[in-house]
């Protein structure tokens, strides 16, 4: 047996496990999305009814659009915050770099719920922010909009997923040669042009990679809006959850899940193409 084919055989268990545990459930879900519910049983006559329902329903379309809107918004905010942080880590942190990177990841070691409840403590009517503002005399009554609002959800989501954006950008900054920025300055480019014409295009792969990660995770986040969003906590993910649970409409739930999946795959494809194109540049194929 040639070593190469031995390697292929050794990879078989992994491929089989991935197929059975990851791809098969998705395939089953995909099949379900073409079925329909007949009172309490599931009818196995295939149709596109579920997808038609999603298209026609303003509620579902709205929920899907809101999920992707949130993903884009949080990705954008984390990019704006992440750029200076990543630049500092790569170019200025020096010996403290390892420690700062570890600190950046520390929140990820604690549980989701823990972080969410921490934000409740901060944002609640009796929370740290309201108390301080009242004590300072800036307000008379607690600000109610802080907690259980889209604001609270997006603050927590940004906080949760910022490390992923920073890591992506940090890697990009590590491979950004300072000589390029010096060359740009040498050729007459002021600071903002150096960012626009050199830093931004050369860190774009990191921005896209980090952005995709944040985007996907925000779109799929269930707990944060549920526990911090109040009335706005109804998301497309919670809708899918309801359809599989109390509403017992697995086919519609599957169809929504697959619609989300298809859109996410499109986003990934677009991102991957962009990264490949910019790394072609970097490696000069």
């Amino acid at each position, binding site marked *: 047996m040639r070593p190469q084919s031995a390697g292929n055989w050794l990879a078989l268990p992994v491929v089989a496990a991935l197929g059975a545990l990851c791809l098969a459930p998705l395939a089953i879900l995909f099949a379900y999305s073409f079925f329909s519910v007949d009172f309490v049983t599931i009818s196995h006559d295939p149709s596109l009814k579920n997808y038609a329902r999603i298209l026609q329903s303003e509620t579902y379309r709205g929920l899907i659009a809101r999920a992707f809107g949130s993903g884009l918004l949080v990705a954008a905010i984390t990019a704006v915050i992440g750029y200076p942080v990543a630049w500092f880590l790569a170019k200025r942190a020096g010996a403290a770099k390892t420690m700062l990177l570890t600190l950046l990841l520390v929140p990820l070691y604690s549980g989701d719920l823990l972080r969410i409840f921490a934000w409740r403590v901060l944002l609640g009517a009796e929370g740290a922010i309201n108390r301080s503002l009242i004590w300072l005399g800036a307000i008379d009554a607690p600000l109610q909009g802080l907690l259980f609002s889209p604001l609270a959800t997006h603050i927590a989501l940004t906080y949760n997923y910022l490390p992923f954006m920073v890591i992506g950008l940090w890697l990009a900054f590590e491979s950004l*040669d300072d*000589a*390029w920025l*010096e*060359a*740009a*300055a*040498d*050729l*007459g*480019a*002021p600071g903002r042009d150096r960012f626009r*014409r*050199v830093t931004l*295009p*050369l860190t774009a792969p990191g921005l896209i990679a980090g952005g995709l990660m944040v985007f996907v995770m925000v779109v799929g986040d269930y707990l944060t809006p549920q526990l911090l969003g109040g009335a706005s906590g109804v998301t497309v993910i919670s809708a899918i959850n309801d359809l599989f649970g109390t509403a017992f409409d697995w086919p519609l739930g599957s169809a929504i899940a697959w619609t989300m999946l298809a859109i996410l795959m499109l986003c990934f494809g677009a991102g991957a193409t962009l990264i490949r194109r*910019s790394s072609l*540049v*970097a*490696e*000069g194929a």
Partner: protein
Amino acid sequence: MAVAAKTAAGRRTRPLLEVIALHKSYGSVQAVRGIDLSLANESYVTLLGPSGCGKTTLLRMVGGFEAIGSGTLMLDGMRLDDLPANRRPINTVFQSYALFPHLSVLENVAFGLSYRAVPKDRIKARAREALATVRMEAMADRRPRQLSGGQQQRVALARAIVNEPRLLLLDEPLSALDRRMRKDMQIELKDLQRRLGMTFLHVTHDQEEAFALSDRIVVMRDGRIEQQGAPGDIYTRPATAYVADFIGGASCLPGRILGPAGKGYAIETALGRHVVPGVAGLSVGARAVLCLRSEQVALGDTGTPAEVTHAVYRGADWLLECVAGGQLFQVAHAGPPPAPGETVRLSFDPDRVWIAREAA
């Protein structure tokens, strides 16, 4: 610009670049310790020295990439100190070339023109002209990483000269090229500088490169200027033992000055007394060195006895290493070499060798 009018008047009379009492330290390390230097217009000047001598730091301060510790930089009589790099009429060819990997060769060269008073529709044409100057117009649409080192070097050069800088800085530009390529580029650099009538300030640790290119060589050591002058002066009349050794690897025989004699001094060395020309200002009793270059020492029937330790074939001749009086000498020898261990006699023409200071 008002600056342009001023320069036209001042161009003939004052030096292009003046470096006055320049200092720079990093923490407790003094990289540049008090440099005074002036560059004539349209000259090719080389900063020559080993790594860590402060030559690159000096260049980076002129370019605006490094803040000045203390002292002043003047270009065309205008203070550069507080001008950021992007507003100095100076361009740089970087050691790593620093070509933008995401832009084509043409876009790289055109980059700086968008910050000059060049009409938009002329930018591409000007960039192509600059590429033609370095014979790279055929590569205009390639990416930098698709080019060889020598080609990247030419593009970096085109990207800098297209902006018609008052001063062009070159930071070890040939160090990444192989020997053959380096020779070709040396000729091209010198030729380009003459054709463009531009002033080049070139940093290198390679003395051959400095000789091939420069109108003037500035030898640096430990953040100071050890000696500056025309290449011929530096080679034949080194001021210190350091310069004599660094430039052309002269053997420096230590001695003591006995007093002025003839056109130079009488010097007492381990190999006897000699009367030899030397640097001005050596007093009686001062410690000095007698500098002997390999081509100035000959084997003969008379002279100082020495033992041959090595013989290295160099193609045109042999380089012999001989020891006499505990001192190592190098001798260029045309004929078949004596075997190592053999005793030979060394002699030199006292009028053609030189006495230098032991230290600055």
